[in-house]
Each structure stands twice: as C-alpha cells, then as structure tokens.
C-alpha cells in the first residue's frame, strides 16, 4: 500500500501561530489546507515535509463578506461552497462553474480555494510515485537537473492546472497575502510566473488569507474546460473568457485566460486585442479563436495530445464567446 511519509502535524490556533511555525521550521515545514494536493504529493514523495502546518481552520482564512460590491472570500472557503452558494453563483457564475468542474464531489468538500490558487504545477513525468520516477529518471522539479519533457532545455514546463485561477484572473481578483514581513495585497495574476519549478511568486512562509473579487459590473464571464472524463480529471485546457461591452455593443475590454497550456495561467493577449473595440460577432469570435489556437503551446506532459488540446483551446474560446454573444451553437454539420 502507498503510505504517507511520516510527518508531524500541527494546526495552530491563529495565523500568527502558523507564520511563526513556518519561520521556525523553514523548508522542513509545509502548509496544508484541504490537503487534496499536498497529501497526494507526499504519498508520491514529491514533498517530504517533517512538519505539516494545518491552516484550514485558521479564523483569519474563513468568511464571506461584501464590501462596496467587492466580494471577499476566506482562503479556506471550500470548493463545494463556491460551487453551490447561491450568492456566489449569482454574482460570479463562471467561478461557481469552475469550482464545480474540479475533480469529484468528495474532493470538493475538503479542497479549498486557497489550495487551488496555490496548487503545484503538474507534469506526467512528475506526478508519479517515487519508484516510477526513479525508473524513468528523476527530473528537474525533483531530484535531478534534467527535464524529461524537453531534456535539452534549462527549465521546467510543468503545467499550471488550477481551474478557478483563470476565472479569478479574468474577474480581476486580488488576494491578501500575509507573511513574516507583513500583509500585502496582490492581484491573483501576479501570484504566478512562467516557471514550472517555482510557479508561485509567494515568498517562503507567506499565506494567502483571502480573495477579493471586484463587482461584476457589465462584465460577462464564462469558463470552459476540456478533460477526458466528466469527473476527476484535471484540465487539459481551460479557458476563462470575460468581456465587457459598450452600450453600443462593442467590446470595451476582454480578458481571456488559459489554464493547463503553460506553466502559468496565461493571458490570451492575442485574442484579447482582436476582440477589443469590435462587436462580438461570428467574425471576431473566429479570429479570437484562431489567435488562441496560435498562442496555446501545450507540451506533451499531460493526458491528451498536443494536436487535440490546441484545437480544443480554439473551440472552447469560440463556444464561450458565442454563448456570451447569444449566437446559436455552430451547426456541427458545417464543421
């Protein structure tokens, strides 16, 4: 049977306690919220912390509040609550959809929003047992200098795989981050960098305590996910598309964010600029789809094929935009 590595577990009573523990134990300690990502990684010996600091019950990470139109959610908000809470679903249906598309109901009842934001990047040479990795050869992300996906290169291409993150970015969400040197407010987008090894810009010991989402105003957002099964699976590509329309119907602004095609949640800047200033029409949508197709550069380190994932990126963005525009589904017969 696959066993967890042995570790000590402490669940401090408040955020300061957690920060102090992290400072004291340094790299030997790891934060755990729902544990649905971390515990699997420990079983596979991708992480071998001596101390696990439980933060899910921290009072500072709880709560739901509305302030001048901004919604603040504690980092410990469970994915199933984001999926089902009618208040959240009314304001940000795409966020609820994205949360509901994560894994399976059992996982969503323990997994948190903070954990999803801080989810480690994934790669099918990496998310494997220690024995398997030893057999194929360890990789740059753990225990070796070589990347198995692109052996000649000097970087890791592990894939940003969180479903709520592209939606949060498209919604212009921000986070409160608490660390040894104080509190800072960071846009969700700025939490990430294009580095599979160290995908988060958080400093060691920093904790995401809450997420703030601006009022939806006239933005409309959709999230679409491609996976091989209707449950369980991580995205092979996910697209969040937000548009804000002028009174005359033209697109004043667009935010299109892709997940699972790069090491960070990538803005589809080409598609965004194609859309800006244009009406949401068959033509602009097709052009945006083409731009996404060109920009999305998945590597061969997830399930599915590069061929298919690139095409799915285009189809997902087109379908989301058509839906927002109220255009009928394209007649498959002409496809």
């Amino acid at each position, binding site marked *: *049977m*696959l066993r967890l590595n042995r570790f000590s577990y402490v669940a401090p009573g408040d955020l300061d306690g957690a920060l102090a523990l992290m400072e004291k134990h340094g790299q030997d300690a790891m934060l755990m919220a729902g544990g649905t990502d971390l515990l699997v990684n420990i079983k596979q010996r991708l992480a071998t912390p001596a101390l696990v600091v439980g933060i899910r019950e921290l009072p500072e990470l709880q709560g739901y509040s509305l302030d001048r139109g901004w919604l603040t959610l504690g980092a410990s908000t469970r994915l199933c609550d984001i999926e089902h809470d009618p208040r959240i679903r009314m304001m940000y249906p795409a966020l609820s959809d994205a949360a509901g598309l994560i894994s399976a109901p059992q996982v969503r009842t323990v997994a948190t929003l903070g954990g999803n934001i801080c989810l480690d990047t994934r790669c099918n040479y990496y998310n494997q047992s220690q*024995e398997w990795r030893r057999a194929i050869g360890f990789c740059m992300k753990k225990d070796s200098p070589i990347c198995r996906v692109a052996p000649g290169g000097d970087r890791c291409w592990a894939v940003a795989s969180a479903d709520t993150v592209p939606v949060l970015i498209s919604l212009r969400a921000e986070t409160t981050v608490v660390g040894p040197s104080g509190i800072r407010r960071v846009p969700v987008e700025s939490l990430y960098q294009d580095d599979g090894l160290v995908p988060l810009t958080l400093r060691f010991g920093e904790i995401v305590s809450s997420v703030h989402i601006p009022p939806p105003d006239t933005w409309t957002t959709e999230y679409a996910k491609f996976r091989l099964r*209707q449950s369980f699976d991580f995205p092979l590509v996910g697209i969040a598309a937000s548009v804000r329309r002028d009174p005359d119907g033209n697109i004043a602004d667009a935010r299109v964010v892709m997940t699972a095609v790069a090491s960070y949640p990538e803005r589809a800047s080409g598609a965004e600029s194609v859309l800006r200033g244009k009406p949401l029409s068959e033509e602009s949508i097709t052009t945006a789809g083409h731009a996404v197709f060109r920009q999305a550069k998945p590597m061969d380190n997830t*399930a599915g094929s590069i*061929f298919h994932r690139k095409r799915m990126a285009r189809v997902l963005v087109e379908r989301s935009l058509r839906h927002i525009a109220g255009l009928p589904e394209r007649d*498959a017969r002409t*496809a």
Partner: protein
Amino acid sequence: MSSEKGTPLQSETSTFHAPSEPLAAHSSERTTQNFSVIGKRNLKYDWHAKLTGAAKYTDDLRLPRMIYGRLLRSPHPHARILRIDVSRARAMSGVFAVLTGKDLPIRYGILPSSQDETAMALEKVRYVGEAVAAVAAVDEWTAEEACNAIEVVYEPLQPVMSIDEALDPDSEKIHDWTKHANIQKNVLLEFGDLDEGFAEADRVFEDEYFFEGNTHVPMENHAALANWEPTGKVTVWSSTQTPHYLHRELARVLDLPPSRIRVIAPPVGGGFGGKSEAFSHELVAPVLSRLSGRPVLISLSREEVFYCHRGRHPVRMWIRTGVKSDGTITALDFKSTLDGGAYGSYGIATTYYTGALNTLPYRVPRYRFEGRRVFTNKPPCGPKRGHGTVQPRFAIEAHLDRIAGELGHDPAEMRKGMLVSPFSWTVNHLRVTSCGLPEAIDAVLERSGWREKHGHLPQGKGIGLACSVYLSGAGLPIYWNPMPHSGAQIKIDRGGGVTVYCGTSDIGQDSDSMLAYVVAEELGVDIGDIHLVTGDTSLAPVDLGSYSSRVTFMAGNAARQAASKLRAQLFQVAAARLDVPEARLGAAGGMIYDLEDTERQIPFAQAAQLAEAEFGTLGETGSYTPPKLAGPYKGSGVGPSPAYSFTCAVAEVDVDLETGILSIQKIWVAHDLGRALNPVVCEGQIEGGVYMGWAEAVIEEQVFRKGLHKQPSLLEYKIPTSLDMPDVDTTIIESIDPEGPFGAKEVGQGPLAPVIPAIANAVYDATGIRIDSTPIMADKVLRAIEMRRKQHAAAV
C-alpha cells in the same frame, strides 16, 4: 511455423441430437414449472456485508503478530541482474526477512506449456515492475526503507516495446529460447478449402485492425496474507479468482506437498481475469512468514496492480472474407498478432481464442486462422473479460458492417440471414446448443428504433450494431486431468439448515448467491436456510475458478446434482410419511408437499430428521465434468464449451465534428443467457460488461513511454466515471439451455464484446469515417475528420 491442420466437418450446419452426456436428474420437465427461487429478484447472498462494509477483504484481515511484506520491483524494462546486495536491508532494525529470486528458483506458469516465470526475477528483469526482491518488516514504512536499502546492479539491455520491434530478428531476445526474434508461438488452423471458398465468392473484402491493450482495474488491489504455522502447515488468504490454481502453484514453487497448503479466497473486490494465476506477492508471502515466524501481509498499491496486469493483449489483425452478394460468408481468413508482454501467462490460450470463436455466430463454411504471440518488455498480458475474443470480434463486426454497406444491405438484416442454427456444429468443431441470438437481434432492433435511425440520422449522429458469442466455461481444464471441473458437497443438519461447500471464488459476480439459489430451489428451502463455505481449498471440493464464465454452468450443475441426491432421500421418507408416491411430491418454501393436494405436506426440517434416521448423516456430493467436445486437431482444446451465450448490441452516438468528442447516447443490449437465475444480478453483469466495453471502445489504453507504463494510476489511466456512462437498455433472452443448471448459460463476459464494434459502426454511421483501431478517442476522430476535410478541399 508449425502447421496444425484440422479435418473439416462435412457441414457446419449438421444438426446433432442428444448431448453427449445428458446430466442425471436434470430433466427439462422442471423447466416449465413455477420456480420459487430461480428467476426471482432475490437479494444477493452477501448483501448485508457488502452494503455495510462488513465484508472482510484480504487487506482487511489482521492476525496477531502480523507483519508487512513488500516487493522491490525492477526499474528497467529489460536488464541483466549482475548483483543483488541485501545486507544493508537485512541488518536494519524492524526487518524480519529478505528474499531474492534465488530463494525461490522454481519456474511456474498458469499453462503447462509456458512455465516461464519465477516468483522473483532470477538472471534478468523483463519489465518495469517485475519483482526482484522481497522484505518483511514490522510496518510498511520500514519495509519501504528496507527495499530502498537493497542494492541491485543491472546491466540494461535494449527494451522491446512493440509488435514490430519484437518481430525484428535483430531485436534483443527477451527469452533466450525463442527461435525467431521474440515470437513465442505461431499457430495455424485450417478448415476446408479456402481457395474454393474465395472462388465461390461474389466479392472478397480485406481489412486490417488494431486493438489497443487495456487492463482490468478491479476495485480491490491484490493482496495476500500468509501464515506458516510451526506445524508445517501454511495458509494463504488471497484476493484470487482461482484458489485451486494458486494452491497448485504454491505447492510447486514452495516445493511443498499440496496437502500442507490451504488457500482461502475471502470476498474478492473484482477480478475480470486479473487475479486468475499466481503472482509474486502470493508466492513470496508464505516464505517471508516461514522465515520470520509471523503472519505476513502484502497489500499491493494501485501502481503495482498495473504491473501485475495480465489484461487485454494489444492485437493486430488482418481479415479477408469471401461473401456472396447476400453477405453469406464463403471463406474467412483471419490473422492475429498478439503483443504478449514479458511472459506466457495465459497467452497461448489467448492466441487461440483470437481465432477460436470466429466461426460463430455466423455460418463460416471454410476458415483459416493464423495467430502468433510475441514477447515484449511490458507487464504480461493475459485474460480480461471476454478473453482473446473481444479483439477479433471488434475486427469481424466492423468488417461486416463495411461489407453490408458496400453490398447495400442493412447490417442487421444481413447478419440475421447468416446466423448459425441452434444445435449445430461449426466447421472448427464447436458444438452449438441453445441459441437465442435471433430474438436478441430483434429485441435491440425494436427497442432502439434501428429501422428508423440507421442511415437516416443527421450528420454527426449515428447508430451501429454488432453481435457476439461467448463460452459458458471452457470445455477443457487448464492442466490436463480427467477429474471434474467443479465439485460440491451439501450437508443438511437436523434443524433444516443446508450447508453447501464449493471451491468457487466469489469475485463480486455473485457466484455465492448462485449456489444458494440453485440449492434452495432444488431442495425447496428458503435462501436464508442456506449456509455457504466457498473459496477454501481445505474445506470445499475443487472448483477450477472464476474464469471463462464457467462457474454458474459448472458449479451450478455440481451443486444441483448434490442437492438432487439429497432431495431424492428426503422425498423417499416424505413419500412414506405422507403416503404419496415420490413422483407426486414437490418442494418449496420449506415444505415437501403433494403436488395434487398441497395441504398434504411435511416441513423440510422434519423430513431431514426422518431421512437422517433412515440413512444416517445427510451429506451428498455432486460434480460436473463437461462433455468431451474437443475436435480431432491440435489446438482444439480452446473454443469448445458446453454452451454459448449470444449477445446483440446497438449503440447510438453523437459525434461533435468540431472536437471529435463522442457522446454515446444510449446502448441497447440483449443477451441470451439461457435462463436468468436472478434477473437483477444478470442485469448487473450485463451493465457492467457494457460499461467495460464502452471504456475499451472510447477511452482506455494501456500505453508505454520510454519503457514504462505511462499512467499507472486511477487518475491518469482513464476508466469512465458514473457521469460518463451512457444509458443502457438491457433485455434478457432466455433460450433455456438443455445442459445448463435450470437452463442457465453465462452472463459475466459476453455482453462486453459487441459494444465496442457497435460503437465503431455507429461512428461510421454518424461521420462516414471508419476508425479501425481502439480506443476511438476524440483525438483520433478529429484527426480523421480534418484529414477528410483536407482531401475534400484538395479534390475541389
């Protein structure tokens, strides 16, 4: 190549009359009577334990002082073992015992003709995951550390990872005895004059297909617990489908008299063929127990289960068929190449199975089959639900769909005109008894609205059909012996309790319930009065195991025979007591009564006491040996069965032409199972088969990268979730087989096979594209659609 030619029979439709060995006391006069247990939607025998989680699977067992075993597995697909140093592991505190291949050097293998495995690798490793050493330690953490402390020096060899590489004469030999490249076995069977058949044909069609490998994924991971007692007796509890074969292999590899070994199969959480032979952990655990003086549990991880494998072979197939203009086959030529993985396993049988049932369910007057199996550096392939017949069925049914299309026939009507007759022989000497396939085809045609839909649905939507056939138990045992295939003992106690002893292993298919139903019906008692002792080689007579869909037919007949002997004793005393002729007695609901005056009755328990007084302790045995059916040619042992089940499936699909994604709207399936002993359980088996067929058709693939299984986990090896599962409409067809217990045949495996080609054929109906390899993944469909679009564009 060895040529094994058989003599053709005069006519494939020659009818036969009496079954060669009519079964005593199994007269068909009772088949029309009202049953009190059989055919009712009864609860499963073990419903409470299974529903509440009380059932104790092997990994749930705990013995006093028990410790944990673990296997060190090879990280190389192909390598010579130069040196193993276990001294550091052995010296660790908490480590009780360490073993390597040299400690258990006796070769074994499930088939007498391929004894090519050892409990742990000896001089070479042949796939990633092959066991190399074993440790027993106080807990699993220590066992893991001890495994990490074992030093193995390997000399890596060139791995052979595909059929083509294995056929290449320059490829590295996996087993040094293979004559040509890495070919394990060639078989050739020929029945009738093929040239004549092709000459007679109006059209000849030729196609190639590939069936991807896939694996069983039972819910319960394999586990074994062994206790070697100081008295020299050893007990092994294991999640096995075949306690008897494990018993034999243990005796061989441990070099112990079988009389000292007891194998117990606790409830097994699914097998599907993946637990039907001995595995390293089962052979190693007893030795670890002997050395440590403690019971040892080895519980495999999911990843290790992928390495045990023995699942569906990847098969490359070529088919050439001569047909008359109405579709009737004049000759069938079929070739298969199986990617066997690193060892023999059941593979020679699998190879024959890719040819054996191709003469059914359509009339094939001349038939040639050439099969070969190659070794590759992957976990060994073996039997998975539908053993070796699923791959050729995909090929044949897709091929026939094309033929029907090109000849301008409705694929269903064309098939209906070609079916074998009940009670006939095939050209390769298969004896067919009951056959409800015409009724099955009609049922799915009717229920699916086939006639309105086929060829008439809009682009992107389609419907497809396929038929299949499967065995109700192999006619021959795995090792040659003249003894029964199944035995049962029944004891009746003074209170009316009935205990049935039978060596069957219930792997979730409900063989325990089957025994209870059959005996309860025969004796006329309540199911609640039946007690079962199964899956135990010391307490129960041999049953060969839960494979080849044999248990209901064989153990059911054995149990029924034992019960009918007891019934005769009880009727004798009841007749005297009630003063009624024995022939006028019936038994039901715990009473033995006069059929003509049902008020004249005697309770079963009272009859049991009278019988015990009259005859002494009440106990009887029953056994079942299949009739001798094998034809007069080498290789004829694979294919014969006392009865065949028949299935027809229709699938309706919706193909998203922009994404290639298939959604299966609904699957209609009708299965001829002889008689449903419990319709709920049968429906469950049929739905389970459809689920697995769906998975193999659309999503499952056991693929390798750089010598390794690419995705040995439940997250990345894709089997469908309940949300993916299409609607299934199930029809049970009862053809009442003359030799099956109460007329029953098989239901556990057959319904899987037609689902795959039915989906492939539906995809064609929807898109005009034939995908000739499984799985029919969205990626593949989309590539084909794009290719066609490009060709069209180029043509314009």
